[in-house]
């Protein structure tokens, strides 16, 4: 991973006449933070960074730009948006393209093979109350962490985000420019899902009811998800009202089960939902369960390309039906 090469690509992208702005990362406001950032000119590229601390996916920002109706005859300019995309981000983009969520010609994707990001909770637990700017780079399976003028070394496994430990698509699957060497993927690993399913039903239900009771319905999970880009979320609607606005375990369960189901065959396991959750609810368990099932049952993985039809709108006559009376 060569930051100068990334900055050069970003600079070239911003030099294009059809690129309006670039979405990337810059130093965060304190400690280990990295901030999503928007770059308008080549000169600004100086503040572009890319490091293991860049945990936020930039893909949600593609669908967040509110298009406010302009007065008169002005049409929205069909300019491109450039962005940095890692493996999971590129899969999210593929999936959105397959769903016709954004036109392909509106994007200029700079693909970056990813060696995994650090889970902010883990590093902040390891080094609490750090306010001075910190930098991290990876070297030989270790993270070299510079806080102020102090340097620390921590084995990568201790700080790597859980979603990255089982990532099978670290290399972008769609891009206009690729910068960086390919990264070897991890093995598929759904052991945590299968071992969970060996627990007795009552224990599972109690666990989830307990987790859902903690949810405060802030909707950060939904808003951080690259694939939740409906103009109006069905679970926000009042007509009909699927979930009440009250915070109550039953309503919260409905919200999360519904959201997980709406992501069936669409979730790319970027892990943003779980990272965003201020209550530490293990949302990825639900998504990964569906991801495993969709692959096992329908041989489909989200975001492999920009053309595949969703497994939920297609079928095989020979689909399993041993459970049907």
């Amino acid at each position, binding site marked *: 991973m060569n930051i100068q090469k990334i900055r050069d690509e970003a600079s070239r992208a911003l030099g294009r006449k059809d690129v309006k702005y670039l979405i990337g990362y810059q130093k965060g406001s304190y400690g280990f933070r990295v901030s999503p950032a928007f770059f308008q000119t080549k000169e600004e590229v100086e503040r572009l960074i890319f490091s293991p601390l860049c945990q936020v996916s930039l893909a949600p920002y593609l669908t967040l730009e509110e298009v406010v109706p302009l007065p008169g005859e002005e049409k929205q300019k069909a300019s491109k948006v450039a962005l940095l995309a890692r493996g999971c981000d590129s899969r999210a983009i593929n999936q959105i393209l397959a769903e016709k969520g954004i036109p392909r010609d509106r994007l200029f994707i700079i693909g970056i093979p990813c060696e995994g990001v650090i889970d902010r909770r883990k590093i902040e637990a390891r080094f609490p109350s750090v306010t001075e700017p910190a930098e991290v780079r990876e070297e030989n399976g270790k993270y070299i962490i510079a806080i102020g003028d102090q340097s620390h070394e921590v084995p990568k496994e201790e700080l790597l985000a859980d979603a990255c430990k089982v990532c099978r698509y670290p290399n972008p699957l769609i891009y206009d420019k690729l910068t960086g060497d390919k990264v070897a993927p991890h093995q598929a690993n759904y052991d945590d899902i299968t071992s969970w399913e060996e627990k007795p039903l009552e224990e599972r239900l109690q666990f989830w009811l307990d987790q859902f009771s*903690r949810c405060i319905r802030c909707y950060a999970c939904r808003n*951080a998800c690259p694939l939740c880009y409906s103009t109006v979320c069905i679970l926000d609607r009042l007509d009909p009202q699927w979930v009440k606005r009250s915070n109550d375990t039953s309503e919260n369960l409905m919200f999360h089960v519904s959201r997980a189901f709406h992501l069936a065959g669409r979730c790319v396991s970027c892990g943003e939902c779980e990272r965003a959750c201020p209550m530490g609810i293990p949302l990825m368990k639900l998504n990964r369960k569906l991801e495993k099932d969709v692959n096992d049952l329908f041989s489909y993985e989200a975001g492999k390309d920009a053309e595949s039809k969703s497994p939920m709108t297609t079928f095989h006559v020979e689909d399993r039906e041993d459970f049907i009376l």
Partner: protein
Amino acid sequence: MSALILPKDRLTDFLLLLHEYTLWAPVQRDTVTLFEVIKDPKDSPVDLEHQASLAKRSIFPQSEELFSFDQSGILNDASKEGSRENIIFGIRPCDARSFRIMDPVFEGTMPDPYYLNRRQRTVLVGIACREPFANCFCTSLGGSPFSQEGLDLILTELDGRFFVEVLSEKGKEIVEKTASVFTPASAEDGKQREDLAKRSEGAIKRKVDLEGITEKLNGIFEHPVWKQMASKCTACGICTYTCPTCYCFDMQDETTLRKGRRVRNWDSCMFAEYTLHASGHNPRPTRAERLRNRIYHKFKFNVDNFGTFGCVGCGRCISLCPFNVDLIENLSTIKSLA
């Protein structure tokens, strides 16, 4: 009343003696620490180490039934219910100050009986902050890690014991009910507390000078800076829900054919549908307007209406925002605008 000492190993006994109160305290739930009701202090260890969130739920619940009704009329009025006194134990000085900021809103010309009912029967037992958290900036908002404002009792952790100061009649009652666990504090104890207070205040790393910010805001409503500041926000509700001074709510009647109840739930000015009109028009259609509104509310409108900033500098919005929307950074940007 002079200061007292509570040995650390008698903390559980202290809480057990207060069994006639509903006890709220910070409890660890997996990776987060939240204020929750503790049924049995022996079963639930109190977490005084991490920054706990959502203390305001004890007085201003996220979902609250106001009254229920059926075809015969109103069945019950929640504002008249509840008689147990509440104790919020382990609250930080910033959270205690936050209730002082919310009070004028709910007391105003139309007193809110639901909030006031709970507020009046709540005792705040605070813990001083020996070590500020990364994003604490209470000192920029007129607070401090050892501030006693709004508290009935305040505990300072010393070696193996808590230094306890009684700050109000309610606090005095608590101490009298639990007298058996206390011993008088010595002058040396008092000095240790002083030293810790000074050190802690000096340990606050993040600051912002808010001198003149309200006047500044008067002139920059249409400034392009709001769009740039809001560009990374994804309009979730984390900042508003975890903020100790945010109090917006939405009311809805939940009904079936023959009965129903009116509920009020927390709402967030950051949500897209917060100002969505029934006509479909939305005066704050984008995140820029909503972020601007939030900052105006806390640093101008609250000042105009109630004379104080609507912020206690707890820094939770900064720590918990997944996208690094940073209030301190935003305020500094505003101040630096020409």
